[in-house]
């Protein structure tokens, strides 16, 4: 994917997340997951444009053949995007819990979703907005 492809995907996901959270769907788990993937594509656009990096996965892996650690996206964010690292980490975990554990199926989940949206997503999004994205 090019930088522009990542940005298009990020914006599309951002819009979709709103629709998922609103009535009639109120699918907060999916809204959280899609917000996570919006951030992921902003991150990938940034890493590609600024550092020519294409992450191979979320987390570091050990390359047995070469005997070295291959950093994951989470490691690159820690190194190159410390401003959004804490926010991203919470989304990474929350989207996993949404997908594999059905953690946000109750009506009470709206509060969790709103907190994530208004705090973590808003702060990370603001960082990318300042780049004109």
């Amino acid at each position: 994917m090019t930088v522009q492809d990542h940005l298009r995907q990020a914006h599309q996901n951002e819009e979709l997340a709103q629709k998922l959270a609103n009535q009639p769907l109120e699918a907060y788990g999916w809204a959280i997951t899609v917000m996570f993937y919006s951030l992921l594509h902003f991150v990938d656009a940034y890493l590609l444009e600024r550092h020519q990096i294409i992450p191979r996965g979320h987390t570091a892996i050990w390359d047995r053949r070469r005997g070295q650690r291959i950093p994951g996206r989470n490691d690159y964010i820690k190194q190159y995007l410390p401003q959004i690292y804490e926010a991203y980490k919470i989304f990474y975990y929350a989207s996993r819990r949404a997908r594999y554990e059905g953690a946000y199926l109750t009506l009470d989940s709206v509060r969790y979703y709103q907190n994530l949206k208004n705090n973590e997503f808003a702060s990370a999004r603001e960082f990318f907005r300042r780049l004109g994205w």
Partner: protein
Amino acid sequence: MKGLEKIKDALRSLKKIDGVESCFLEEETEDIIHIYTITRIVKYDLDKRIFQEYAELEKRFPHVSFEFLITSQPPSPIAEVVF
């Protein structure tokens, strides 16, 4: 105390957080470590508190690549019990 023991020791601070039931650690290599904190309830404030502890851990062990999770399900059987 070896590196992994120091990490386990630091993780025990999670015990004092109301809502945290247990903690597991899985060592992929000595500098790639997965941390699983088990909670049965899903609350934003609880998760934020756990992530504060995770952030402290990362500051103390900057050379380690952590994967931090909070989950209601115990991880794979090869993960070690921290508490």
